């Protein structure tokens, strides 16, 4: 199966989400990548190490800002030129809009929120958890090009040590695609350890009661050698920086251990952390949705339990 993987880049590096999907695609057949926007050519070759045989690049000024519609134009051109059978995306705020717009443009089927890809008799099959992950649905495509949006954090990038040929292409832009413009961009950088790379995350939500509640989470995270995450609700309330936000908006994380403290588990948050290895939830509300998707759920007062856990971890030396 010949696939094309949409690769996003940020601050001069290819994003892990796309590279993970690329690694998976390479395990299923010939995989190529596409990088769009400023500096595309300089980062593109790096995709070779993750299984791309070729990376297509387009660096038009219309692609400088992280906006979806000009990317739909570019991908539609490329799919036509290359005859890609499958176009694969790792889910992000930007890529979801690109995938959906491309589906409409090409009149192509899009399956989203996939947690696996495989081949059955040479045909692409996706796995899609549904109904709050209580059902696992096998989904397919009636015809090509087959568009797939993979749940964030599903596949880890795997280095294969290959090299990729970089080929640039040109596209034309639809009149409506360039109407939206980026006016301002605010990037919030974190001071503590990055939650994206952490093996262990201690995360807090409204149940902390006040911004000061994060102090006990920071202590636990330090004892465990992990990072601190936060829900959108508390980030919106100004309790903790945006760079630590886990969820549909914010970061998608898949640490080996996720300790959710005072987090109800709204879908917004769940989307960003459900790929975690082991999930521990502490919440005083026994009906909190998070208890449906954790490994160990504790109904109780986090202000009692978290400091005690920190002490226990420290005393192990």
């Amino acid at each position: 199966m010949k696939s094309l993987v949409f690769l996003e880049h940020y601050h001069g590096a290819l994003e892990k989400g796309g590279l993970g999907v690329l690694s998976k695609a390479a395990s299923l057949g010939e995989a190529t990548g596409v990088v769009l926007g400023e500096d595309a050519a300089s980062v593109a070759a790096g995709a070779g190490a993750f299984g791309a045989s070729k990376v297509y690049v387009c660096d038009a000024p219309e692609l400088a800002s992280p906006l979806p519609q000009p990317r739909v134009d570019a991908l539609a051109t490329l799919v036509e030129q290359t005859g890609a059978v499958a176009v694969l995306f790792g889910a992000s705020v930007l890529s979801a809009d690109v995938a959906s717009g491309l589906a409409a443009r090409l009149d192509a089927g899009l399956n989203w929120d996939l947690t696996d890809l495989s081949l059955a008799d040479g045909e692409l099959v996706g796995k899609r958890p549904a109904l709050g992950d209580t059902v696992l649905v096998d989904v397919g495509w009636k015809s090509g090009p087959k568009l797939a949006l993979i749940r964030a954090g599903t596949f880890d990038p795997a280095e294969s040590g290959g090299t990729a040929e970089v080929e640039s292409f040109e596209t034309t832009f639809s009149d409506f695609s360039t109407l939206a413009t980026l006016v301002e961009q605010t990037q919030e950088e974190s001071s503590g350890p990055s939650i994206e790379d952490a093996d262990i995350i201690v995360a807090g939500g409204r149940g902390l009661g006040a911004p000061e509640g994060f102090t006990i989470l920071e202590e636990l995270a330090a004892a465990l050698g992990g990072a601190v995450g936060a829900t959108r609700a508390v980030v919106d309330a100004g309790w903790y920086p945006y760079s630590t936000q886990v969820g549909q908006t914010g970061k998608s994380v898949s640490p080996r251990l996720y300790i959710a403290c005072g987090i109800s588990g709204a879908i917004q948050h769940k989307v960003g952390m459900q790929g975690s290895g082991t999930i521990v939830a502490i919440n005083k509300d026994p009906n909190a949705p998070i208890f449906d998707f954790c490994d160990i759920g504790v109904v109780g007062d986090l202000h009692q339990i978290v400091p005690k856990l920190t002490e226990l971890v420290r005393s192990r030396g």
Partner: protein
Amino acid sequence: MKIAVCVKQVPDATVHKRIDPATKRLDRSGEAALNPTDLNAVEEALRIKEAQGGEVVLMSLGPEKAVDSLRKALAMGADRAVLVSDEAAAGSDLLGTARALAGALERESADLVLFGQASGDGDGAVLWAAVADRLRRPVVSQVAALTVEAGSVTGKRQTEHGYDVISAPLPAVVAVSDAINEPRYPSLKGIMSAKTKPQETLSLGDVGVDAGAAGEAGAKTTVLDLGAPPARGDQVKIEDDGSAAQRILDLVVERKLL
């Protein structure tokens, strides 16, 4: 300012959702409600109308009984509702849904088309971009704060890395995040007046979509099989009796996570 808000009826949160093994579609026979995050889009539309005047029109695709759910948004203050309902639309995938909604929206020529964040049944947060492409209009999604000025919208879009402020000329499509506002509750007066507000039901033909281009026939994706998800292992839920911290540590140590 004419604002169209795309809303969807979904099974009520309290209903045990199931997929019908015969059709492999979501069983929509039980209690239904308006998709909760669509209420944020309705609320935002009402606020714009209250500030600038205009009309708020609800747009939906779904079974006939979806009018019940639309009435709730009418009670919040929307002016009228348009429902595209057609047997041939059942089983539509993204393409069929986008085509039908875009067809209905084209009839309205709204200045602003609003969507909520995600649908509570399909978990998909992708529809607006497909609709915008069909309408050939600019799209801004994941908007946590929206400003509407003469002839343009500016949205503060939340991304993985921070905020992007994006501006687009009207007519435009905007998908709001559920962080944008707190939806109001309908007043008693609103509930009473909703009963007499105009509701229009259209067929696929009315919105210019061939029956073969929507529903199961027009779908380019297919459900092959249904299965149980891999178990998360043994789920444990305990009440803290003072030993919870130790129980957590035991599990973490047992799984070699430290």
